[in-house]
């Protein structure tokens, strides 16, 4: 009965303060949208970093197009003799394309749109000891028939440090935005609290418990937060979908890692935003009520 009362009160307050509710909804949605962008960046950077780490123990040696089987044999034997090499595998350009298609999954049809296979034949070196990777690269690089080596400790290190920086900066910004939205909600609710100050005073005099008084305001905040969460995760989902459709191929070619799946991301975003919305709303209303319930 008490919960039903709180729900009824919360909705009637939202109804009474339509403009303020709309204003705070808009600001929280705006904040969650920015937050969503950072979330997407972090998730994708993480995804990319995972991929990079997985490729760490492999050195890919791109071969010139004119290498014949005899040369290939010589190369593989030579490479196999370098200390720190566990083994080598020859990968044709067609196999390489197949691998990419597998890796891209859903987005594989993007590759079919290309007329020719842009990938070279290559030798994959399994590295036994990562510390020797640099000396292996140095030994392989001058060999005849080698076009380019797709491995750079530097790049890997840089990428990983960039990843950490992006994660840290995003975390700080996300926390800051959460703080801002708590303030926004608490200000909205403060207005409804002030408007109902007399009612609250009467409640306290008559002996209503703090939770009974707080309940409707708490729910009001939670409802605002949840609505904002639903709207902004839908918006972010749609934007991401559009973005992946438009830039997916470029991204893939650039960093050889595909975007995180849209549905997976939107689903998680909804859960995260809902949790955030609830806590933002709850914190906001508790902050705004604090002063009024001191006594």
């Amino acid at each position, binding site marked *: 009965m008490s919960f039903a*009362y709180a729900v009824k009160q919360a909705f009637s307050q939202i109804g009474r303060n339509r403009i303020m509710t709309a204003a705070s909804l808009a600001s929280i949605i705006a904040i969650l949208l920015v937050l969503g962008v950072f979330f997407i960046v972090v998730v994708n950077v993480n995804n990319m970093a995972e991929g990079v780490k997985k490729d760490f123990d492999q050195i890919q040696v791109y071969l010139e197009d004119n290498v014949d089987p005899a040369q290939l044999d010589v190369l593989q034997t030579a490479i196999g003799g370098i200390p720190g090499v566990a083994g080598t595998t020859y990968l044709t350009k067609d196999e390489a394309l197949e691998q990419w298609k597998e890796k891209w999954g859903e987005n594989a049809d993007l590759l079919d749109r290309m007329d020719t296979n842009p990938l070279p034949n290559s030798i994959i070196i399994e590295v036994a000891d990562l510390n020797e990777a640099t000396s292996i690269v140095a030994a392989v690089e001058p060999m005849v028939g080698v076009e380019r080596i797709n491995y750079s400790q530097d790049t890997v290190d840089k990428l990983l440090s960039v990843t950490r920086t992006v994660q840290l900066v995003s975390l700080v910004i996300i926390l800051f935005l959460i703080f801002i939205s708590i303030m926004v909600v608490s200000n909205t609710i403060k207005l409804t609290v002030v408007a109902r100050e*007399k*009612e609250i005073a*009467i409640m306290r*005099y008559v*002996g*209503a*418990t703090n939770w*009974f008084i707080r309940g409707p305001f708490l729910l009001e905040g939670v409802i605002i937060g949840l609505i904002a969460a639903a709207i902004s995760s839908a918006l972010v989902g749609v934007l991401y979908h559009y973005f992946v459709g438009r830039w997916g191929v470029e991204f893939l070619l650039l960093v050889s890692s595909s975007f995180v799946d849209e549905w997976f991301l939107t689903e998680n975003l909804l859960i995260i935003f809902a949790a955030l919305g609830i806590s933002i709303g709850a914190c906001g209303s508790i902050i705004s009520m604090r002063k009024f319930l001191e*006594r």
Partner: protein
Amino acid sequence: MIEFRKVSKSYGANIGVKGISITIDDGEFVFLVGPSGAGKTTFVKLFLKMVDADRGHIFYKGYDVTKLPPRLVPQHRRSLGIVFQDFSLLPKKTVYENIAFAMEIVQKAPRTIRRMVPQALDLVGLTKEADKLPNELSIGEQQRVAIARSIINNPDVLIADEPTGNLDPETGWEIMRLLEQINRRGTTVLMVTHSREIVNAMNKRVVAIKNGRIVRDEKGGLYHPEEDDDPVPRPKEGALSLQ
């Protein structure tokens, strides 16, 4: 029984009450009189735990109000009915709703509310006004609604801070008859007043406070004008500003 034992409360440099000790028995009717700023409202607020005492104890129903933890304060207030200067009716609720509200917030069953509110309205003689809004009532009628609201949860003590303050004498007497009737049902009544006529006519216990101290406590007492200040406020010298 209410017992104040050497209770003091000051607001910074302002003295609220100072070392007050008093015992009020169940079912008593007590007038609290004294000049403006004497500490009467402070006394009442201490008992309601609207302010905290600096020193001393207030015993009631076997517990010490000054030591009451916050979570038990609502329970404490539920045994008290309050008619206060700054505790008026909600303007957007009808008379019926204003009274029912006091029951709703202590989570009384709807059935109980439907049964009790008409009884309270009948007691204060406002059955016909149930569906009116407060601003459609006279000040005296509004005060009666406030009294109905204050007793709706069957308080053991009714605390009224100047309930006849802005009423004409006749309406004031109506309120007094009502309070006496409530007192006869067994409710302890503690009433703050500046009205000499009322105090002198009612023949009740009179407690006079001045500068935060009890200066007189007399059964069947009278109103002593020398204990009160000049009721007509005089502008302080130099307090007037142009424009």
